């Protein structure tokens, strides 16, 4: 558990944040640029001092301005991956990796071999840091931080300085780390696609304040999130369980809530977790079980709320037996169908909209090693 309650005023910008984060897991600090995310991680790392507050990791109090406790960064055992990698230019890759490891306490939970294997660093060891691509630099920086055996890993927009191709090259490694090592991570990003691939828990920030927090499924329906990422990107994020491949269609069956979705098959076996996103604009709501349709996916549920989205449409939240999904429906349709909380409905999903959003979810053990 990472507990943070801090205040910091810097010129016209003021940060006031309080939250308790579950560990292990990946917590995403998400918000627009300048919302105070980086300031917050710098305070957690100890590189910045808040005006007042408290930071504690499990029972380890890192900062308590009231009691006069302030553990310096080098004693906090918190790994930090910076946006600009910050590899030491006078050392080669192997020496960069060894830098943190040499200074770590004797009890290690991750070895150089494991890190080199997970991040595919074997071939880079003797390179100078100037000879690395942006993506390789970040992989080395992540490895270096991990080898210092941190109790918590902070990643401050580690992919922000990379182009989208390089980002795709690094993301699978981050997913792999999340699934293979139990290091709690705080991941700062203003790219929602990174959040939806990596996070288990989301803290939403805006203008120096925390405006919402919760599990990724719950937060994916958050109204404040819509203001940041836009209505078209909104949609429920669900962690489903792979049931197997359907012989007749060749599609993979995934259990979500009480229902089931069919998606394009991925190289994962039954029982694997799969994260899917159902965009609100891709959902169609029916009040009766529809027949004779080309749509492959249909989820039965009960409406829990109907809220205004914009001038013409409403967002309809539907409980599908635990998790919730969200559909964007025109206001006229809401009136005609009398959509209201408590009404049983069917949500139709185009199979197509699932495919590109199927990612290995936390806890998955069967995902293949990324090849780069």
């Amino acid at each position, binding site marked *: 558990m990472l507990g943070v309650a801090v205040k910091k005023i810097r010129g016209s910008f003021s940060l006031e944040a309080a939250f308790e984060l579950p560990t292990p897991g990946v917590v995403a600090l998400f918000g627009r640029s300048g919302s105070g995310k980086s300031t917050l991680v710098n305070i957690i*790392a100890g*590189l910045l001092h808040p005006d007042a507050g408290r930071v504690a990791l499990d029972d380890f109090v890192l900062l308590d301005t009231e009691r006069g406790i302030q553990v*310096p*960064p*080098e*004693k*906090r*055992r*918190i*790994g*930090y991956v*910076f946006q*600009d990698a*910050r590899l*030491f*230019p*006078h050392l080669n890759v192997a020496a960069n990796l060894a*830098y*943190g490891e040499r*200074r*770590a306490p004797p009890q290690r939970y991750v070895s150089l071999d494991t890190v080199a294997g997970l991040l595919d660093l074997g071939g880079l060891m003797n390179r*100078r*840091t*100037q000879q690395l691509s942006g993506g390789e630099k970040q992989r080395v920086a992540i490895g*270096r*931080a991990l080898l*210092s055996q941190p109790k918590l890993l902070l990643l401050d927009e580690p992919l922000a300085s990379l182009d989208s191709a390089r980002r795709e090259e690094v993301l699978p490694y981050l997913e792999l780390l999340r699934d293979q090592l139990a290091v709690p991570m705080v991941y700062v990003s203003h790219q929602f696609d990174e959040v939806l691939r990596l996070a288990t828990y989301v803290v939403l920030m805006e203008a120096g304040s925390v405006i919402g927090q919760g599990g990724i499924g719950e937060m994916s329906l958050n109204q404040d999130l819509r203001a940041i990422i836009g209505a078209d990107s909104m949609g429920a994020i669900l962690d489903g369980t792979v049931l197997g491949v359907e012989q007749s269609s060749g599609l993979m069956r995934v259990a979500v809530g009480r229902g089931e979705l069919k998606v394009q098959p991925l190289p994962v076996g039954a029982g694997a977790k799969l994260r899917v996103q159902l965009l609100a604009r891709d959902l169609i709501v029916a009040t009766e079980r529809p027949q004779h349709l080309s749509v492959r996916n249909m989820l039965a549920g009960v409406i829990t709320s109907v809220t205004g989205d914009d001038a013409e449409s409403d967002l309809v939240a539907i409980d599908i037996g635990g998790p919730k999904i969200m559909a964007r429906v025109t206001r006229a349709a809401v009136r005609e169908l009398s959509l209201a909380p408590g009404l049983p409905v069917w949500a139709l999903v185009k199979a197509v909209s699932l495919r590109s959003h199927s990612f290995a979810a936390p806890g998955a053990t069967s995902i293949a090693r990324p090849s780069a």
Partner: protein
Amino acid sequence: MSLSIAARSVAVSLPLAILLAWVLTRRRFLGHTLLDAFVHLPLVLPPVVVGYLLLLLFGTRGPIGSWLQHTFGVELIFTRNGAALATAVMSFPLMVRAMRISLENVDRGLEQAARTLGAGAIDRFATITLPLMLPGVLAGAITAFSAALGEFGAVITFVSNIPGETRTLPLALYTALQTPGGDSTAARLACISFALGLSGLLLSEWFARRVRRLLGR
């Protein structure tokens, strides 16, 4: 002899110059500007004034000089070590300047990164800051060495012009010029000066290039 004096001078002032460069670049404190000005004083003062001040402070009756003599039996005035001290003081600002410039170019983010990896202050300085400011340290040392070779006014004022003890190259050159028939000696000494100065500059350039390549810049 000149070389040995210059080498001693650099050896003494190098650690102190690194410390001062760091303090002046990284710390802000009361009297910062005053200290900065004090370090640069030998650049703007006539060297004879510096020599005179050294005489006052380090002479046998001066406060530091008498203490040194009583405690360690070290005598500076009219000795080789005294000549080294005089040249060190004179070339000190050059050294500090070169180091400050390179220290300002060291990315503080790298020091922060080292910090999050568990490196304490001294550890950080030794493993990150110092290696990265090495080009400036080397350039400063070589410039100071060359300047020490050529120092005249402060040396002659503080430790006089004693053959075999404090007669450095420029002093010898000056003496030769004052002596009837010393023209050929003077010319020879001037040639040596020229060669030393040129090789110093070339060496410094070569070092700087090598270190830059090592740092991959």
